[in-house]
């Protein structure tokens, strides 16, 4: 049989091609008529160009335009890039001389950007005029070597999100608990086709550090500490082994979760929790939208504090705004940032359940009515901003492999910590470059 034997009737084929051509032609016309800008993200005088990984949508976008863009007489224009390539794309726009006015990324990303040669404007002078309604962590998160480069628009911390119905017989949740206490409780949440507790451990996952770091910090450690002009390792082998033991015990001592957890990323944790295949995990304020489409989970959503190793801790995760030092509209950009952080806009965000984050203003957070979001407020007091270095480097090269070793290969946590310390030593040169 020849390949020619596959055939529509000639008329059908011609009609199909005609319709296809018409559709393509119409689309081409539509796209050709759409105004575009050549040569990158630099905007016109009446635009503020914001480079981001996730542009706002719906009511939030409208609110930002009305309360922060319109008063300045500018249109907001977002250009979006993939999260993994954000620093390199930001650096590349600088090379073309066609820079965005504002860079919107996580505040701690300022360190990566500066390390990559992206010219950011220090905001020290400008923030000095701000009122004292803002959290200290707001500034800490965007501080690199003493200068503040990023300030926040909204905040998330970490708590344990769990299904109340699955935990009905697991006993009460205390206001603070140790790793062992927590795992013993989480193991009771297991059920048919359901794990008790999970976390992200897949190399490359952007979420895992938010789970791992509070545990490490709760031992009294930091990832790195300043050593003159350089950084040095801020934790000991024993402190790391303590955290790795927690992950190992979750699988092999308490059987709260399958060993497969060593390969989980956020699609597995979010997706498993949504569908009821995972009873608890460390989650941020995004948990409400995560379960919004799943009535059983939404109606039984509860939160608990993170476990700790003596010192209560949580992760201060902040969407930050930075001004490009080569922007010709630096003052305008700061005015925009000030309006974004204004009481009026932050209050409006706090009252809007769809915003899905805490405010950077303490007073605005008092207006939050969403019961789940309210539970995050307690952890703002002890949540810590991550160290101003690129977490991808040490998470991918050191921490994720160690987490995978103890879960997938049942490696001894002390041995895994030993290997991780060696790997961290070699990563430090990269961090300090």
């Amino acid at each position: 049989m020849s390949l020619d034997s596959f055939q529509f009737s000639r008329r059908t084929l011609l009609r199909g091609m005609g319709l296809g051509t018409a559709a393509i032609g119409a689309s081409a016309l539509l796209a050709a008529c759409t105004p575009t800008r050549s040569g990158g993200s630099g905007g016109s005088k009446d635009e503020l160009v914001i480079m981001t990984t996730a542009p706002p949508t719906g009511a939030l976008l409208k609110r930002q335009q009305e309360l922060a863009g319109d008063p300045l007489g500018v249109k907001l224009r977002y250009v979006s890039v993939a999260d993994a390539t954000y620093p390199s794309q930001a650096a590349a726009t600088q090379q073309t001389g066609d820079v965005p006015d504002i860079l919107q990324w996580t505040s701690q990303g300022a360190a990566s950007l500066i390390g990559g040669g992206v010219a950011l404007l220090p905001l020290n002078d400008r923030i000095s005029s701000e009122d004292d309604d803002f959290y200290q962590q707001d500034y800490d998160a965007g501080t690199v070597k003493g200068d503040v480069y990023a300030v926040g628009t909204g905040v998330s911390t970490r708590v344990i999100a769990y299904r109340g119905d699955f935990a009905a017989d697991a006993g009460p949740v205390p206001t603070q608990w140790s790793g062992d206490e927590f795992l013993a409780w989480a193991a009771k949440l297991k059920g048919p086709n359901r794990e008790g507790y999970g976390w992200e451990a897949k190399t490359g996952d952007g979420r895992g550090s938010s789970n791992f770091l509070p545990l490490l910090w709760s031992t009294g450690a930091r990832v790195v500490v300043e050593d003159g002009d350089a950084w040095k390792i801020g934790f000991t082998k024993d402190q790391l082994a303590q955290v790795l033991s927690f992950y190992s015990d979750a699988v092999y001592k308490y059987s709260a979760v399958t060993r497969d957890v060593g390969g989980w990323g956020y699609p597995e944790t979010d997706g498993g929790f949504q569908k009821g295949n995972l009873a608890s995990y460390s989650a941020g304020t995004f948990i409400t939208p995560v379960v919004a489409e799943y009535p059983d989970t939404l109606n039984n959503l509860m939160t608990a504090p993170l476990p700790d190793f003596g010192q209560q801790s949580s992760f201060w995760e902040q969407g930050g705004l930075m001004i490009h030092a080569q922007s010709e509209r630096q003052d305008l950009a700061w005015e925009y940032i000030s309006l974004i952080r204004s009481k009026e806009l932050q209050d409006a965000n706090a009252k809007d359940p769809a915003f899905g984050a805490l405010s950077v203003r303490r007073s605005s957070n008092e207006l939050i009515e969403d019961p789940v979001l309210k539970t995050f407020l307690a952890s703002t007091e002890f949540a810590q901003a991550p160290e101003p270095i690129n977490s991808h480097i040490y998470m991918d090269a050191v921490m994720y492999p160690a987490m995978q070793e103890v879960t997938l290969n049942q490696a001894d946590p002390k041995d895994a910590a030993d290997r991780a310390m060696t790997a961290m030593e070699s990563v430090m040169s990269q961090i300090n470059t």
Partner: protein
Amino acid sequence: MSLITAAPTRTPGATSHKTAGAEGRPGGRKRGRQGSAAYGLFLLPGVILVLGLIVYPIWSGVALSFTQANTFTGDGPFVGFENYASFFELPFWQQLLGNSFIRAIGGAVPSYLLGMLAALALQQRLRYAGAARLIVLLPFVISAPVGIYMWQAVFNPYTGVPAGLGLDIGSLFTNTELVWPTLLFMNAWGSFQFYTILLLAGIQRIPTELYEAASIDGAGAIRSFFTVTFPSIRGISAAALAMHFMGSFQDFSLVYIATGGGPLNTTQTLASYAYQSTFSTGFNLGLGSAIAVLSVLLMVVTMLVLVGIFFAGRALLARSAEQRMLRAQREFAAIGRAPLGMLPPRPPTRPHSDRGWRIARRVWSHVSVLLFVLFALFPILFLLSQAFDGAPPGPGVLRFWPEQFTLDNFVSVFSNPAFWRGEEGASAPLILNLANSAIVTIGVTIVVLALASFGGYALSRWKNAATRIWTSVLVVTQLVPAIILLFPLYLLLADLQLLNTRHGLILITATASLPVATLFFRVYFERSPRELEEAAMLDGAGPIRTFVSIVLPNARTALGAMGAFTLIGTWNEFVFALTFVSDPNVRTFPPQLKQFTATSAFLNETSPGEQAVFLLLPIVTSAILLALTIRHFTAAYEGGGLKE
């Protein structure tokens, strides 16, 4: 071929096509010079583009491998072979090499075997064979992220097939023993069709007399396959396996998207590690480039070894066949002394008239085709079921059939303002991204057809050292992994102010397709008859007029084939569109969909049914394109085998 006389040629084919026309008539030498100039002109645009946008970036990539360049700035101090030494100091460098070969061999061989079986099944004369071919080819034109997403859903231990079957086998993607078989199975699902297309064409060209002769000799289906079919497609099999081996060796998307190289580097390959080193861990452009260069060198050496083995094997087979022939001749001579009736009895032939056998064979024909159709459709059926399901999301396993049939998910997606209007200033409507895809696809196809047909024609008619070198350059560019090109290209496009523009994307995507397309047209025009061209030239037509008035109108099939090939390839192109365009108004559909499906709005605020509809969009568009172009598309893979 009369006008190439000014250029020295040593190819017998070209010499045989010389006519007396050019040299024998006054002005013939001048005309020859004009011809050379015209052929040079034909080649020039393609040469400029390939040199500028492929060869130069490759050279930059090699140069970067000797520097301490970081990904942000693209430059750094010269460090000699330090990056290469750093690679060999990695504690798992042997694992990376081993995994690259697992990916390459495991990517090519299972696909080949499946492709062969599918070709044998689909070559049968069945009424629905055309539709079956369309369905079986569909996974081949579905973009990698969508295909991987579907299989991950199918293999999900809690909601996928294992849970549906009551199996507790855990995640296949974190099981160090099962992760490679799983990935290679997924890979085979989307790539065996490459062989099916090629082998179908090869099988259909085998003269039926050979099968009849084998049948008379008592060969059954299996013996016929090994004595007739396989020897006839051995050459095309080797060439296709070599191409696929190279592609699989360089590929990083399967590993990068499905496992990120895990668990514990079990699936990390040179390509995926080079990408990670450059773009996500360490931003070490120098090291990433060094690994990419090593990968190219390793592949070249491997290919040389494989080619050597192939030719040695062929020589061995030829010698063995010769010996068999001599033995047969000796036996025949011995038999020849005996009366005819004393010939040794032939083995009994299979009784083809046997009704039961015929029915069994007919049933098997249908079953084998249906098995491949089901295999191709398997993950898509789950997606379809979800798209038409109105059941509230919650615990449960994937189903082949919706629990509560509804069209609401489609209505919801297509009435979503984001689809038609987008969010002003923040995101473009998806329909605009579709339109961008249409513009870029049409633009690339036009540029590729125009430049490659001219270039391929010039290479087939103008034989000299320069064109032979250029042909080699075009072949060598195919050995280079895309990763080595990305960053130098980014900087180059930035300098040319071509980032975030449709014409920039068209230019780079078209250039990336030019080498293969030019080689395709070169082969096509090499084989096409030249009498008409010679007649036209005798009538005084120059090369341009001859090409435009005579050659091109007669090459409609080749143009259609390469057009369809380019159309579908560009429609699904992902990496360039993602990297070189960040403005949502200019971005094409695949990267925008990928970006959209990674957002919280999609993952969390979109119901599973609506998610399925969004993922079906690119599948349906690919299916429509495939249906409209399947004949040309398959012809392109056959190397322009269809002639006027």
